[in-house]
């Protein structure tokens, strides 16, 4: 069971298959114990702002958020906007993982201050590689301001 207070990766993904494959990749690289998965935009917000169903969670932000765009309840873009509007969460790196590479999506997310925009490759190997590389990059390589 993941300790909710030491989450380093917040995975926001509504598709169970994609979520499972991502977790599998991270698990293979020993990053799985630091991942928390939520399945819609509202849960993501609740988690980040310690409200709603996650009200009891101690304050502590993940080191990176993998965010899918097409989410039920609250859309990915809305979540991104909320993250960037709050000073507690503004600095958290957000990586959008999505299947769509429509130009309009890319522009919208960069307008809202996304750090990366990754298109989920169909080829599983590439997808795995992408997840792992991202995990390592944001958790290990990339330096962030101390909270």
């Amino acid at each position, binding site marked *: 069971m993941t300790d909710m207070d030491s989450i380093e990766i917040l995975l926001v993904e509504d598709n169970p*298959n*994609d979520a499972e494959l991502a977790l599998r990749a991270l698990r293979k690289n020993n990053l799985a114990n630091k991942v928390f998965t939520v399945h819609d935009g509202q849960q993501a917000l609740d988690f980040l702002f310690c409200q709603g169903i996650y009200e009891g969670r101690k304050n502590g932000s993940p080191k990176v958020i993998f965010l899918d765009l097409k989410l039920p309840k609250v859309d990915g873009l809305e979540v991104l906007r909320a993250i960037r509007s709050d000073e507690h969460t503004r600095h958290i790196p957000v990586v959008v993982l999505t*299947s769509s590479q*429509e130009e309009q999506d890319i522009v919208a997310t960069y307008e809202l201050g996304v750090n990366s925009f990754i298109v989920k490759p*169909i*080829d*599983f190997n590439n997808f795995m590689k992408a997840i792992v590389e991202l995990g390592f990059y944001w958790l290990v390589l990339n330096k962030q301001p101390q909270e």
Partner: protein
Amino acid sequence: MRKGGSGFMLKNKIKWSAERLLQLGVGLALLILAGVGLLAYRSTESLIDNSHLVAHTQEVLAELKTTLSRVAAGESSQRGYLLTGDASYLGPYHLAVQEVGNHLNSLRTLTADNPRQQARVVGLDAALKTRMDLLERCIKQYEIGGIPAAQHFLLTSGGKQAMENVTQQVGAMEAEERNLLAIRTRDAESSAHSTVAVYLTLLALGFLLLLALYTGTRRHIAQRTQAEATVRALNNSLEQRVAERTAQLQVANKELEAFSYSVSHDLRAPLRAVSGFSSAVLEDYGDKLDAEGRRYLDLIGKGAQDMGRLIDDLLSFSRMNRLQMEHSTVDMTALTRGVVAELSRANEKRHIEFDLSDLPPATGDSAMLRQVFVNLLSNAVKFTATREAACIKIGSRAEAGENVYLVADNGAGFDMRHANKLFGVFQRLHSASEFDGTGVGLAIVQRIVHRHGGRVWAEGQVDHGATFYFSLPTGGASTKMVEGAIQ
């Protein structure tokens, strides 16, 4: 379209009657003017003639008067001489003697056109001769026998009768002339009256003509205005319909775009599951399977990948049809240089030689034209994979009204017999085992080039490379370009 049809015919009818009326009116006006001119000329002529005649008659009358007074003067001078015996009284008589002949000649000339007058002149001539002769003889008598002789001569010679003859002839001639003058004057008057009548008639005609032209023109203008209004209304309704249609097309376009968007997103997710989990099985349980089982799983994964590429290509193709074309001058040399650089970077491990010449600029959408080169050059790179050293040449040549661009490679080539299939969607001339690809790349190239008003074609030989050509019209032939069309 009925409305348009009757509008067109109406216009023709208007044209016909207006033109005819105008011709008729102008013709009549010209006739009237000619008539008036002619009349003016003729009446002036007759005025002049008349005045000549009047002058002539006056001349004749004057001549007659002078003749008579000359003779009378001669007579009285002779009398004076007879009374006084003073030769100085004979001045007028001598003058009369001298001049009578001249006067007669004048009269003869003046009345040359009138036979009656001519006859009278003869008579006058005779009468004058008699009279003058008597006067002379009387003087002679006086010179011989003095007053008594002269007196006797006078009483017996019939001098009075002679003079009366003269006076009579002169009177007759005068009467004739006066009569002629009267006749001519009456004629002139009546002709003047008739001229005035004709003038008035012509004026009336002219006035009616003007009236007719006026009403005709007004009616014509009214018809014209109405026709114009009809045309304007038609134009407006047409424009409105075009606007409506355009709005409809735009809505359809947007719907298509939304559809493509969801297709791209929703179709990929299950593919990821297929690919991902088949790989997962391979990885985690591959050792529990035999080689065949592992191969099956591999094929499953590949199938998913292929489908993914298909989806991408289809979406590209559909986007190519929908997008609005930009119109600008495109630097083709810089464009191809960029694409070549990218391909070189992506294929660092291979030995590819790009021979890039300067290309003439083109008018069109630079993003779309870039896609053309990306597809053609990617194909060239792909189909030269079997070559040790791949040679890819990019060039151009100018032809009448267009520039032809070409990409030539020394790769696998193709069988010219199937050349017509090259540019079809999903048409492939090589099996999937030889060369990867979904077969949409060239279809996209053709679509883009056609939208720019150009043509595509290719030449190749199996195992001896292929050259792909496309032409683009020169001189901003925007009329040839086809704007975003829904297929």
